[in-house]
């Protein structure tokens, strides 16, 4: 009896591991195919960005690099206002993220305090804005009235608070046990001190997550600039990129034309576009490891506790 009982699971194990291995192979195959599909556009981006003009012209299916030519990057940097737009984007991203984070953290903390008078009302007034907005034109006219037309601050102040992030952070603050706050109060700390000296260190994971989300949003924004910015010197990188790839206005400035003539080179517009796309991707690639460390937490923290 005893030996029989021991034999059955063993048999089971062998049969399962065989089926298992087939399943494993199929899943790995699917994953590899999907990985190739997702990575291919980036491969193509790099490939075209380092391609020579004549190679693109003469090869019907240019998929294996014939040369690695960094000329295109030099030209992309010479594209009118490119360097300037990188400065604008960096300014908007750094200052915008800092301000957004400060205001969101303070607001989220206050809204998380259960003893706050009018807390329910304040929260509802904020949440309702996620469901109803005035619409584009009434909003635009107010922005105009506030002096945001052609101001670099239009990319920082109107998107200052993301309601969703605010709620995420509020939920996190709510989950911090109240004992710490009480003991700090007994020690004579006021609410501002409690937030910045006690709560912020405790909420570091959510603050880091939201900081990264804000930073990515600011870096990726083109819409606000497209609507409000007229001065070419105030355009962010994403808008320059949009002019290039969507409006397809490859308006090479003088610096670029001269450089091309002096070097006796021709630059394919595709290469120029892909070089710019690559350069715009770099900052995201740089912060992505941090993003990845936090995003799973970020989307879960406070929001979903399944």
């Amino acid at each position, binding site marked *: 009896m005893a030996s029989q009982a021991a034999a059955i699971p063993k048999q089971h194990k062998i049969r*399962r591991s065989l089926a*298992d291995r087939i*399943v*494993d192979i199929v899943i*790995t195959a*699917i*994953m590899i195919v*999907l990985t190739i599909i*997702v990575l291919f*556009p980036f491969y*193509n981006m790099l490939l075209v960005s380092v391609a020579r003009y004549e190679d693109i012209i003469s090869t*019907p*299916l*240019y*998929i294996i690099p014939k040369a690695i030519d960094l000329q295109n990057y030099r030209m992309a940097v010479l594209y009118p206002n490119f360097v300037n737009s990188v400065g604008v984007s960096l300014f908007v991203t750094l200052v915008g993220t800092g301000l957004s984070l400060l205001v969101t953290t*303070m*607001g989220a903390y*206050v*809204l998380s305090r259960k*003893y*706050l*008078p009018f807390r*329910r009302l304040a*929260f509802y*007034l904020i949440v309702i804005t996620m*469901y*109803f907005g*005035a*619409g*584009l*034109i*009434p909003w635009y*006219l*107010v922005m*105009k*009235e*506030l002096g945001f037309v052609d101001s670099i601050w239009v990319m920082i102040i109107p998107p*200052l608070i993301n309601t969703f992030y605010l*709620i995420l952070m509020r939920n996190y603050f709510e989950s911090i046990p109240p004992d710490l706050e009480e003991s700090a109060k007994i020690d004579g700390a006021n*609410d501002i001190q409690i*937030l910045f000296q006690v709560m912020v260190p405790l909420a570091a994971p959510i603050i880091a997550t939201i900081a990264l989300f804000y930073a*990515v949003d600011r*870096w*990726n924004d*083109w*819409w606000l600039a497209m609507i409000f910015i007229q001065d070419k010197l105030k355009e962010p990188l*994403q808008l320059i990129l*949009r002019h*290039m790839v*969507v409006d397809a206005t490859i308006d090479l400035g003088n610096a670029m034309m001269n450089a091309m003539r002096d070097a006796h080179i021709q630059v394919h517009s*595709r290469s120029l*576009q*892909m070089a710019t*796309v690559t350069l715009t*991707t770099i900052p*995201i690639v740089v912060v992505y490891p941090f993003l*990845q460390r936090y*995003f799973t937490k970020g989307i*879960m923290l406070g929001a979903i506790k*399944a």
Partner: protein
Amino acid sequence: MHVAIKGRAPRGERSNLAQTWRRCVEHRYLFLMLLPVFVYYLLFAYAPIFNPQTGGILMAFKQHNLTKPFSQWQWVGLKYFEMMWRKPDFWVAMRNTVGISFARLLFEFPVPIILALLLNEVRRERSKRFYQTVFTFPNFLSWVLVVGLMRDLLQVDGVINGVIKALSGGVAYNFLANDSVFSNYAMLLLSNLFKSAGWGSIIYLASIASIDPTLYEAATVDGANRWQCAWYITWPGIKSTAVVLLILQCGNILNSGFDQIFNLVNGVNRSVIETIDVYIYRYAFQQSMNQSFAAASGLFKAVINFALLMTANQIARRLGENKLF
């Protein structure tokens, strides 16, 4: 879990004005810290709705007049809504919005679920993390950038047409400028999946992670294979999340991806992919200078959208699964 607003003050205290005032003074620093948030929502969310100077949403009911200030505009009632109602291109945009949203519900919505179930079956933790890293990355790129990638692949001289030409003997297909519903929808759905399917699967993977592991152990002891474990344990474990997300997605039927479509729309494919948001934008800034008309179509959309979102949210809450509010 409801994180809803608990901690309402006891009845007796609420009626006591003096006491409320004392509590407000006591928490003056809290109000100070809330001030920027208050000003922000006042200026950027409420001022556009109610505004005597610029008109707010009321301008949809007044005759647009560039030469006079808003207060002197004539009331015209529902004139602009009637105008909108009679415009064929408005209904085209409406039909496209709903059509694209339904296509997304049907074909995009299940993909993150399937992806999560597949990722969950990857045995090696390191491989799993690698795949997730790859699949999630495009989510953090802007639509301008993703459209840049797409255009290069899809243009007449691009790689995809290179393959098509090699197979068909030299006939390229213009993916970016055609009015075929199938081709345009496929382009929209596939590019959106490229960008956000990996990100979308994270929420399901988190739900899977919270399933009690003893269930799997018990099932394995009873001789269940992997397929049975996935079907009878993993899928029921994430079903409620999927249902809630589906309902919330239904509430978003009128929001079918402005950034994506705005960067892809042109004169040729407008009749197929122009959605209501793009339409409103076009009338606000490009087509005519009639801001009242743009405001009217914006308000029409906002009201229906509000009703849809609220309904979806209520249903999700009824199911006891709306965990956000």
